[in-house]
């Protein structure tokens, strides 16, 4: 049983490495094609994975780590959530803020992905100029009930990944970075940057201690 698992793990690691190498060589994609490919890929993996469907959060987190994280610009995301205080932070503080914020978001995102069952992604028409350095890609998650609006802010990163990176995410009209801005601001004004780092680390520790 255990050996079987290890064997499969080995294969999937090899496969992932192969895919990663393939992706790095790939041409830069159109922004909406890039998002479409990433989301379909993730949804398909979730549906195909029995461990995920039976509630194994660690596996979803692993999936997010390999498929989504490489496409996200976390330093930029963290900097804009922290706001003006970012420039006063030491490189070490910045590094820790990025790490803790990343852990928090990965876990949140993985928790949301766990709810996925029969949903599909549909892309909305892209309104952008060919030379835009930044743009918004709009999509909808359709299942039963209201369609869920899911938009991404992308920046052009020629030659890296699919040629784009995500730096903000909008679920149902709520931009992720904006939702953290005032929470971060009040932590910083009452406890300083180190206080914010400590609060984030504490929250991540509590989350990790929960069963799922």
């Amino acid at each position, binding site marked *: 049983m255990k050996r079987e698992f290890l064997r499969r793990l080995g294969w999937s690691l090899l496969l992932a490495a192969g895919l990663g190498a393939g992706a790095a060589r790939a041409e830069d994609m159109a922004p909406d094609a890039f998002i479409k490919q990433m989301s379909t890929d993730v949804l398909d993996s979730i549906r195909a994975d029995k461990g995920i469907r039976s509630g194994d959060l660690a596996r979803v987190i692993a999936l997010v780590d390999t498929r989504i994280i490489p496409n996200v610009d976390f330093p930029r995301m963290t900097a804009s959530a922290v706001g003006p205080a970012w420039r006063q932070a030491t490189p070490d503080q910045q590094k820790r803020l990025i790490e803790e914020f990343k852990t928090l*978001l990965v876990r*949140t995102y993985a928790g949301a992905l766990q709810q996925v069952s029969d949903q599909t992604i549909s892309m909305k028409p892209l309104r952008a100029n060919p030379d835009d350095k930044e743009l918004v890609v709009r999509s909808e998650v359709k299942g039963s*009930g209201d369609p869920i609006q899911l938009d991404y802010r992308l920046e052009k990163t020629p030659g890296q990944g699919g040629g784009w990176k995500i730096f903000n995410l909008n679920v149902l*009209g709520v931009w992720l970075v*904006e939702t953290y801005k005032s929470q971060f601001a009040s932590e910083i*004004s009452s406890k300083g940057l180190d206080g914010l780092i400590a609060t984030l680390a504490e929250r991540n520790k509590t989350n990790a201690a929960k069963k799922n």
Partner: protein
Amino acid sequence: MTRGVQRWLVSPVARRASRLAIPLAVVLLQGCATGPDANPRDPMEPLNRAVFRFNDALDSTVLKPVATGYKAVTPSLIRKGVGNFFNNLQDMWSSVNSALQGRGQEFSDNIGRVMVNSTIGMFGLIDVASALQIDRHTTDFGTTLGRWGVAPGPYVVLPLLGPFTLREVAAYPIDYTGDRSSQLGGSADANAEISVLKIIDRRANLLDAGNIIDGAALDPYTFMRDGYLQRQRNVQYDGNPPDEDLPP
């Protein structure tokens, strides 16, 4: 104005509410938020926070355990039927409002859903329309008022009911009456029982989402408020609000 609203306005609840209004206004004015982190949309933050804490305590001691139990003991097919039934009644009210808002596509989707689900879907118990890929667009009278130009006003957290803007508070009696699930029973007792079932059903659907938010928020109050206000604004602009408060 519908007869239901008139009934509500002369109801004992409304009369009691109006007697409460003046002391409440005094409390509201005393609880004004100041300080560097005050959100201009949330002038009553201290009071709102107190109500939020109350709601949260009530939720974790009563509503959440009951909803968890309901989810555990009720077969998922039945739960789905109950949810669909309430959704269908809500879709009727959404149809009316998308018409009042002049949102053509939303109106035809919503009314199409009601027609399909009320007939083939056996009084709304089965959501045939979703299987036919007719999208659901939930909307209410608060949004209609917004479409007509009424400003949202400040953020308010109501006891038991949760986050609102002042405009939504004003629209609430109309929304409550407009969604026919509040009058299905025929008698006050039966209506109350149906309302309780609806509340438990809604809460049970939010159990997973609630756990995610608990994990994601540093300050659940601010998280909820900022999320709610952004969402309101998004609905107002048909999912495409201008960027005024976003960084370039």
